[in-house]
């Protein structure tokens, strides 16, 4: 089989290509329309402010929010920091307990670690084997002094969709502020904050075909949620986040969200068909496991473990595909994916995992190529694998004393 001239992009959960329509919308705001949206004294500022406010409406529109509930940030990491630190600091006199989940993004987990250093107490909940949160366990974790809970909408590694409506209702009942990291959710699942009991929601541009370096935090007005600013300065964004707004970036995220609202239903149907095609092509390989719930997930994500094959070597073989792995070897830390570990997957299966994420420009031909090259390389690497040989000889690998190194 020949390799295409450039790796086929199947890493949409890492980032999306910017939609050309988004790029076109942004360019004028980098060229002639350079004004500072905060300049109130002349036309350069007025037109930039108008563009930023239109973009704010477009962002709000995709998630059923009021534009006044949208605070611009630099991306979902900053939004998560602002939401968690901002709410924890504001409500600290009410209590010091925070609840989150072990499979959250590092931007949430590491922020919670920092809050622990500041004196807050954090409960990191386990997930079930399918990656979903057990609602009873969540309910049981709520204490009288719980002020804040943070649960992501769509997981970045395994694509599972948490039951945000149910978790939000539990929080409302107990008066707990509820934050949702929706970086991977916008344009992939329907979000209507008029109905969804969520107080704070982190958003980003580049996972929904917008530019990198721009995001937003939804801060609910009714019932009103308060946060303490983490970035101080000129008092932009009603004091919640100072800093000159990057007009072109705001316009880009707005346009990306406008397109998402318009096209997401048709697009997601197409992507579901591609997802099903990929699953059908790969599921019959021996000793293959899908990581995360098989249906309660966005179709953009397929995370699979190919037992007895190490993920990095597989990625090296399927060089026509740009994908990622939960293997330790692809990370700087040499630790296998903590998300897969949280599902109770063995280290071996975490080392053997491949995350394939597809999107707007993925084609059927690319899926077929991916299936063929993965099958070919899994077979080749298993021929090389002493573990596969032992498995085939009927040896139970768990009975062997391995020397950990």
């Amino acid at each position, binding site marked *: 089989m020949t390799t295409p001239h450039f790796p086929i992009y199947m890493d949409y959960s890492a980032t999306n290509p910017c939609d050309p329509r988004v790029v076109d919308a942004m360019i004028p705001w980098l060229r002639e329309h350079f004004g500072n949206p905060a300049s109130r004294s002349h036309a350069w500022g007025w037109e930039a402010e108008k563009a930023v406010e239109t973009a704010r409406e477009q962002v709000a529109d995709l998630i059923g929010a009021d534009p006044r509930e949208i605070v611009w940030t630099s991306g979902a990491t900053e939004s998560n920091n602002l939401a968690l630190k901002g709410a924890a600091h504001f409500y600290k006199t009410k209590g010091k307990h925070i609840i989150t989940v072990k499979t959250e993004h590092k931007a949430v987990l590491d922020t919670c670690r920092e809050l622990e250093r500041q004196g807050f107490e954090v409960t990191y909940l386990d997930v079930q084997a399918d990656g979903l949160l057990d609602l009873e366990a969540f309910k049981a974790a709520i204490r009288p002094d719980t002020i804040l809970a943070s649960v992501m909408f769509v997981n970045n590694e395994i694509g599972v969709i948490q039951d945000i409506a149910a978790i939000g209702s539990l929080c409302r009942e107990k008066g707990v502020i509820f934050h949702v990291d929706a970086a991977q959710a916008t344009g992939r699942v329907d979000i209507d904050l008029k109905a969804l009991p969520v107080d704070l929601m982190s958003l980003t541009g580049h996972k929904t075909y917008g530019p990198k370096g721009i995001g937003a935090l939804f801060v609910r007005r009714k019932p009103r949620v308060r946060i303490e600013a983490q970035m101080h300065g000129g008092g932009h964004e009603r004091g919640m986040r100072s800093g000159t707004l990057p007009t072109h970036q705001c316009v880009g995220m707005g346009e990306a969200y406008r397109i998402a609202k318009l096209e997401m239903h048709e697009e997601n149907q197409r992507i579901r068909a591609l997802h099903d095609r990929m699953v059908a092509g790969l599921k019959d390989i021996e000793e293959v496991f899908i990581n995360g719930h098989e249906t309660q997930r966005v179709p953009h994500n397929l995370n699979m473990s190919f037992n*007895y*094959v*190490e993920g*990095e*070597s597989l990625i*090296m*073989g399927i060089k026509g595909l740009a994908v990622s792995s939960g*293997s*330790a*070897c692809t990370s*700087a830390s*040499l630790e*296998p994916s903590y998300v897969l570990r949280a599902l109770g997957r*063995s*280290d*071996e299966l975490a*080392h053997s995992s491949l995350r394939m994420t597809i999107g707007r420009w993925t084609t059927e031909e690319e899926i077929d190529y991916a299936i063929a090259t993965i099958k070919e390389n899994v077979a080749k690497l298993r*021929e*090389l*694998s*002493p*573990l*596969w*040989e032992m498995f085939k000889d009927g040896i139970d*690998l768990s009975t062997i004393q*391995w*020397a*950990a*190194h």
Partner: protein
Amino acid sequence: MAYSEKVVDHYEHPRNVGSFDKSDESVGTGMVGAPACGDVMKLQIKVNPATGVIEDARFKTYGCGSAIASSSLVTEWVKGKTLDEAAALKNSEIAEELALPPVKIHCSILAEDAIKAAVDDYRKKHLN
């Protein structure tokens, strides 16, 4: 991360892949690493009992490209060597030959461990 040409060459054309019969008197087997760590190497040598020279070698490796390349390279190097020469092989020589980056040095260490284990196994079989 980019791999060196030599790592890619060994990965794409691994030398001496396969297995010898473990119970064969002329065979020494070394199995090192652990699945949980993401690397397991099995390295086997076939020794001429009259001369003590390694006449053939085989490997199978579960691990990243650098681990596969390290073990493949070692099977090439040990052929024609005496047991003492093979056991004296240094991981630094492997790392240098394959231009392994620092984060992959443990792959060369594992390959050194594997050949030492194979030599030990052969010697244990021939204590008397």
